[in-house]
């Protein structure tokens, strides 16, 4: 069966109902195990002390804040090219999840930064691009709410998503582009594999990253179903209104 068959809302909802229980259970298991292991079962860092335990929230949240935008980008491109409504609604459904992940990354970063850097905030390339990404998330959500016609809203938000992707990329690679600022390089660089995190911190961190990823997928599946049902209800009422 082609992946495009899931552009049919009924098929998408059937698939969603089937995979969601597994996703919710696995995400809860991974997040709970990773956080409990990280919080209770890891030592202090020799330089950062107990603040290293913030890594189990900060890194997975930052990872998902950026990847949520990339998922929205792919869904937006599918909408623009193939006009599948489910993909536009999936992008809409992902935005509030992405914004919460961004807020968690920004807040935990500030709380971590204060004792380590001596400041809650610095206009460092990575922090600044992350703040701009947060503003793009807010703009994206506001645009969906502001435009009455859903197809026009999907068009405009898709274009906004394309523009915002520049800052999603910068959030990820700002440290490499501008070799300055307070923020350290990526803790777990997937491309090179040369991570800077010791094994004792790394394994619970991986569990948290997988857990946050699964939680994001579960939430997007559920929220996309919600958007499909709301769209269907509005369409039924509009059709009945025209017929009356």
């Amino acid at each position, binding site marked *: 069966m082609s992946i495009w068959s899931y552009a049919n809302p009924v098929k998408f909802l059937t698939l969603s109902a089937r995979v969601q229980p597994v996703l919710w259970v696995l995400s809860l298991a991974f997040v709970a195990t990773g*956080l409990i292991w990280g919080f209770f079962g890891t030592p202090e860092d020799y330089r950062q002390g107990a603040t290293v335990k*913030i890594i189990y929230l900060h890194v997975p949240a930052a990872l998902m804040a950026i990847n949520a935008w990339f998922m929205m980008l792919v869904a937006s491109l599918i909408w623009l090219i193939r006009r599948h409504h489910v993909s536009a609604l999936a992008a809409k459904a992902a935005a509030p999840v992405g914004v919460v992940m961004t807020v968690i990354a920004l807040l935990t970063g500030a709380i971590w930064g204060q004792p380590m850097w001596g400041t809650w905030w610095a206009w460092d390339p990575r922090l600044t691009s992350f703040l701009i990404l947060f503003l793009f998330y807010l703009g994206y959500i506001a645009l969906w709410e502001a435009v009455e016609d859903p197809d026009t809203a999907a068009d405009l938000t898709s274009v906004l998503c394309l523009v915002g992707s520049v800052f999603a990329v910068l959030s990820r690679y700002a440290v490499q582009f501008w070799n300055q600022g307070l923020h350290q390089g990526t803790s777990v660089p997937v491309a090179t594999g040369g991570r800077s995190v010791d094994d004792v911190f790394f394994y619970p961190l991986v569990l948290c990253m997988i857990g946050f990823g699964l939680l994001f997928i579960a939430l997007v599946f559920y929220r996309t179903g919600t958007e499909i049902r709301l769209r269907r209800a509005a369409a039924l009422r509009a059709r009945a209104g025209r017929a009356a």
Partner: protein
Amino acid sequence: MMPELGKYATEVLSAYAVSLLLLAVLVLWTLRRGRAARATLEAAERETGRHD
């Protein structure tokens, strides 16, 4: 059994409290909105007599 967090206890605990609270609010809001959407669709289907 609480781990020894030393002089950074406030920072670590506040980071966990804020993050877990935000995640809980996100999940609960998502589930509540989903239930409301199901009810809205059922009402619309009843009103219009369409279930296709």
